[in-house]
């Protein structure tokens, strides 16, 4: 599953259950096949317009990774 970053943020003040993960990058991805999904970014930070690929799904969370062209 691939897509493009529609928007993103780096979360510093996390909710109780994710305090150990902070800071983490969250993004809304416009999927190639249509629709959008909110997921986390693994590895390099991304910006609006960057292409990303689904790396894994864990605890119901979709983790995406930047595609370098």
């Amino acid at each position, binding site marked *: 599953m691939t897509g493009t970053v529609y928007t993103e*943020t780096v979360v*510093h003040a996390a909710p109780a259950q994710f305090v150990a993960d902070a800071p*983490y990058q969250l993004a809304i991805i416009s999927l190639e096949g249509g629709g959008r999904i909110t997921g986390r970014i693994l590895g390099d930070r991304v910006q609006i317009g960057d292409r990303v690929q689904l790396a894994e799904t864990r605890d119901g969370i979709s983790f995406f990774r930047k595609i370098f062209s």
Partner: protein
Amino acid sequence: MRPVAVIGIGKTAFGAFPDRDLRSLAVEAGGKALADAHVSPSKVEAFYLGNFAGPAFAGQNHLAPYIASGLGITGVPCTRFEAACASSGSAFFHAVTSVAAGMYDIVLAAGVEKMTSQPTPVVTEILAGAGDTTGEVRAGATFPALFAMIARRHMFQYGTTREQLAAVAVKNHSNGAKNPLAHMRKVITLEQALAGKPIAEPLTVYDCSLISDGAAVVLIAPLERAFEFTAKPAKILGIAQTSDAVALDQKDDITTFRAVRLAGEKAYKMAGLKAEDIEFAELHDCFTIAEIIATEDLGWVEKGQGGAYALSGKTCLHGERPINPSGGLKSKGHPVGATGVGQICDLVMQIRGEAGDLQVARHSLGLAENLGGSGATAVVTILGKA
């Protein structure tokens, strides 16, 4: 439909009050509103309460009769409304419709929240429950994160800058410093606002409203009876509540709040007014970007020009259209469930000419915008001198 007026208002200070419980705050504000209109509790025919998360914050359910009975109001319908940060805006909207329809004459609309008894990460988690917990929230979205993503996209599409966001915080703190009921009565500089601790990039702590305790109550009646209770009623000229999807990733364009645009259009139409007629406004600046977008959605500037408008000085206390003369949620505080009715109290004080150091020059026509979540509920109210 018959015309409706606000005949009494009452607010507690907003702030962190470790020794106060939720009911005592609501009872204080309610007592003030009843006294303001010289109405005894036995005359109240219905009670509409806005509260977002009393059960989660304070472990208390069945809140409407719990609070109403504390005010000496029993035997009448007492109902709680939950619409995230627009909970009491929604309670007020439904109270107004019941009086407009002729069902009741004397009705109390209230809002209350007690937030500071929980540590910030827990508050953050409870607030996140106003998002989509099967999607965005599960992935780790907080409310600051949702508005940060809105800000990032607005910056990308329209060139909105960090300075423009910070200008909202500087203005609202400058106003709130003069408000005796505000949570954070502190002037801040642009440099301070820009150098704030990051919460969710690009938003810093100075872009975020406060975690507060507080309550606000208004008493409403048909306009034809309003002068029985007060020499200075405020007439409800237009009011609308609207909705949209809860999840941010389900909205086509996150740089606009569709519900706010729609509520604004409906309220203007009901009042027979245009955007430019509005003299001052209390807008839902839960985050600085939200005030910027609201000024666009309510029609005062073109889409994308809200940032420049914020920096122009036109929205300052003595500008051409003061926005958030009270200090807004940013400085006044944001006890979530109390915010909507609190805004109505602030408009009424201005319309009566009783806003003290916060008084704006032109004060006969004001608008309040109360936003729920990241835009799934909006309530817009236009009040004028009766």
